């Protein structure tokens, strides 16, 4: 099938399957202040299901099904659920159930890439009567030794980074492959969103001040598609945190008798050259 026709078909499918698009712009945040560490340190995570550009509204999270660390040393997998602590997260307009996790330094002492993977409980978007489940990855590097951060983790859906998610300059380009069951997903619908405010982990809250003002609603959540090989390419115009989400790419399409959107999320940290 010609690429143009396949792209049109993918766009039509995406439009049909997302008539209202209320499920869009939801992002499972897996946040910590710093992902490129000189030396290992205790890591404090905020795990919040929200709209990161607007700083809310934030959705109630159920207890995550899995929260794993894939170690830099030999790829050993560690179950981190014992470190999850439920909190009430204060976002711009509401409070919602979220999680914090304090990961001890001992688990990330090795040099190289440490991959954190969150599998949340599906969230029922009542407005649309649709469940959303976002498999979320974050890569932390210790010392600057490159590692296994670009290795797929065998998730039902995931975004495989082609650049280091923790080492990006403002103005750079980031590339990744969208995968479902380990295979590239051509023409997947992609959302891109900037965390447009501070994240106060200790107070379980987003900052009240926006970093930038969107000139119009469509600038809050940017969108594109992966190419015919499943590769997505994005620019990084501003320092801070960027979330990439590939929407509704999973093979499992229903949960508890309702439609399920299995999305893949990857977080990318960007620095100014100064």
């Amino acid at each position, binding site marked *: 099938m010609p690429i143009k026709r396949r792209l049109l078909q993918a766009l039509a499918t995406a439009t049909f399957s997302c008539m209202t698009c209320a499920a869009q712009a939801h992002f499972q945040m897996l946040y910590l202040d710093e992902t490129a560490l000189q*030396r290992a340190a205790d890591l404090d995570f905020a795990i919040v299901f929200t709209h990161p550009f607007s700083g809310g509204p934030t959705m109630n999270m159920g207890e995550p099904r899995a929260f794993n660390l894939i170690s830099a040393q030999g790829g050993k997998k560690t179950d981190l659920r014992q470190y999850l602590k439920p909190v009430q997260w204060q976002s711009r307009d509401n409070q919602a159930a979220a999680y914090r996790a304090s990961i001890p330094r001992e688990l990330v002492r090795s040099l190289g890439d440490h991959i954190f993977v969150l599998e949340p409980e599906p969230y029922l978007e009542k407005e649309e009567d649709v469940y959303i489940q976002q498999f979320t990855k974050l890569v932390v590097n*210790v010392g600057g*030794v490159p590692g296994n951060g670009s290795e797929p983790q065998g998730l039902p859906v995931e975004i495989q980074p082609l650049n280091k998610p923790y080492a990006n300059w403002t103005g750079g380009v980031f590339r990744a492959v969208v995968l479902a069951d380990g295979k590239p997903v051509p023409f997947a619908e992609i959302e891109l969103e900037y965390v447009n405010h501070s994240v106060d982990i200790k107070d379980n809250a987003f900052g009240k001040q926006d970093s930038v003002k969107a000139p119009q609603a469509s600038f809050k959540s940017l969108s594109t598609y992966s190419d015919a090989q499943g590769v997505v390419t994005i620019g990084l115009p501003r320092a801070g945190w960027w979330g990439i989400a590939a929407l509704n790419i999973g093979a499992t399409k229903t949960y508890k008798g309702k439609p399920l959107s299995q999305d893949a999320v990857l977080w990318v940290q960007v620095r100014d050259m100064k």
Partner: protein
Amino acid sequence: MKAQMFAHPILLASALLFCQAALAHGPVFDCYIEHDDWVKCEAGYTDGSSAVGRKIHVQDTSNKLLLEGTVGKDNSYTFQAPAGAYSVEFLGGENHGATIQSSDITQ
């Protein structure tokens, strides 16, 4: 003569290339207390190349060599901490050394 004139730019280009490769290859070294008084040190390079077989020296404050080891297949070297203050030096190659003081080695 023409061949000689050609050789110079090629040599220059090669030298620059090697220089660039060397610049992109910095040592990374860190140590932590793995358990009890056993210290594990990990070594590597920023381009991902292996440090296996490189020497590691443990020295006292007067630079007296207390222990000498090599980086193993898992890019690490483990030793029992000596009494008193000491330093651990990764001999990662010319201009590629790195040293850590015992006061900076924690769990």
